[in-house]
């Protein structure tokens, strides 16, 4: 799991071209959107695409649970792990 958490942090930085932050500086439980890391709606789109491409998982952006999955890196890791089966 911690391997996946690290992988996701790297992915977030790479995909979103975040230059002012290192993987270590992203706290696994902090909010990705709004406060915390402060990602925006377009970042959500791009991160969703990257996850779908990399892990071949489907994301239903309509469902309420999707919001929960994208709340933090920890949640995202859990979601990816479960979705991959």
């Amino acid at each position, binding site marked *: 799991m911690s391997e996946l958490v690290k992988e996701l942090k790297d992915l977030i930085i790479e995909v979103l071209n975040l230059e002012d932050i*290192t993987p270590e500086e992203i706290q696994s439980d902090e909010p990705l959107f709004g406060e915390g890391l*402060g990602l*925006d709606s377009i970042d959500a789109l791009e991160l969703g695409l990257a996850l779908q491409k990399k892990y071949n998982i489907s994301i239903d952006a309509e469902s309420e649970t999707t919001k929960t999955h994208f709340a933090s890196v920890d949640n995202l890791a859990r979601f990816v792990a479960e979705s991959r089966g």
Partner: protein
Amino acid sequence: MLFDEVFGYREGSDLVCHARTGPVSFAKFRRRLAATSAALRARLVRLPSARVALYCDDSYEFSLLLFAALACGAQVVIPANNKRSTMEHIGDVSLWLGNWEICSPERDIRAPEALLPEHKDSAELCEFSGSIQLFTSGSSGEPQRVNKTLTQLLTEIETQQQLWGALAERTTTLATVSHQHIYGLLFKVLWPLYSGRPFVGKTYRDVAALLRDAKQFAPALWIASPAQLSRRIDSWPWYLGHSLHGIFSSGGPLAPEDARAVEELSGKAPLEIYGSTETGGIAWRQQIEDARWQPLARVQVSADSDDLLRVNSPWLPEVFSGQDRIKVDVDGRFRLLGRADRIVKIEEKRVSLSQVESLLMTSEWIVDARTLTVKRGRQGLAAVVALSASGREILMLRGRGQLVRALRALLAPDLDGVALPRLWRFVDAIPKNQQGKSPRELLMQLFDATPVRMLPRVIKREMAEQNVRVEIQIPADLPCLPGHFEDAPVVPGVVQIDWAMHYGRELLGLGGRFSSMEVIKFKQLLRPGENAVLELEFDIEKNKLKFRFHCPDNEVGEYSSGKLCFDHG
């Protein structure tokens, strides 16, 4: 406006909307509208010319509240978002309708549920006498109020209907854009209502889900924008595109490659609408056929002597002069040449660089700020910031990442996410040329520097007036290492010089152009996994940056050193 002029449904059983709670027939819609309006009228009874603000996530709730308020004769203010600064900008209103971020009793915020009693006898509505106030798209930039009458909006809808009526016939409207902007308001809500077609209440965020629902509700129309159409995955069920009769896109021009790719994937070439909050729809194109814009029927488009857009149409009170530069061909079609002011468009949102700068300068850490657009993956905002003494202290004590976070948090309440600067450069003074100006090219030099994945990991930074000490670790996965050399990777000398330049520009705010190097020495190999210290010292008079990479624990053990010279001005 009379009820029948607004709604085009014939039977009570006609479907108006696929709402969260299920399908809504015209009969039900009418009942709910009458009940909502009665509830609202009771609240506004002592306010003959009421002004109400309306924000909803859901288009079904939105349309009920909109027409209920219009039936009460209110002016309905429809802002782009429900942020704090937007509420302040809207000012005095009698009621806050819908979903608002900040709840306070004195603000009198009504959630839609509170105004939607399920069963209540109330008279059927027959007329809408209120008006609408929109804001220029955006997230920032002193949004301008734009007043509209329902008649104006529906006059445009009538023109759109004449053009696309056959295409739209029997379709269900699905949208990935919000009705809080004029394009969504017209195409997602008013047009289906006017032509008696159903729409889906929610706003889709996931194109795959939209395509699946398009099949379910086929035939369908997709009201889209470049933000989604430019971000695609081929494995989405695009083959369901055959359920779509059309894909509309507005908010900004679609890149040619995106238009082509969407057509290849879905079988539908996007139909683009050019317009603005002020003007409503102006022109359209299907750029695969012709990249030029064709004015809509009854719309006059011309360019003034500065190439600036002038437009008049039956849904405008007077000729409108815009800040888009255009070139009109003899056949009346035209091309867009770009903006003439300091407003930039990022992901369909107008962003005023001046506003972002003045917001930044409210911080006690900042004495001066400039913003510009920079493309790094996607188009985004970049900020060059001159720090005050207290700002530099924060930078030294808490580090760059924390300072950036704090500044983004400062801006967040007032700006939409896309308007928050993504790239930051902290300098002592904003670079200026000899004329005292800071042209884009000069500022861009600060961003041309090294991409972040090419840099070492920074462990610690210490800064003084013209000195910097950066403790770094060399990651094993630096892109410069593979092949240099096969079995014994070392950090190339040119990369070390690049790092010195990068941190010099970033931490000491060097603005000049690099001109030459002096006394460059490479003494021992710098290998991945190792820690090193980079010391920089800037000689202002000579405009030279002295650098030295050495071992952290042994001040003497040196990897490399030299001087980088810059042009004055």
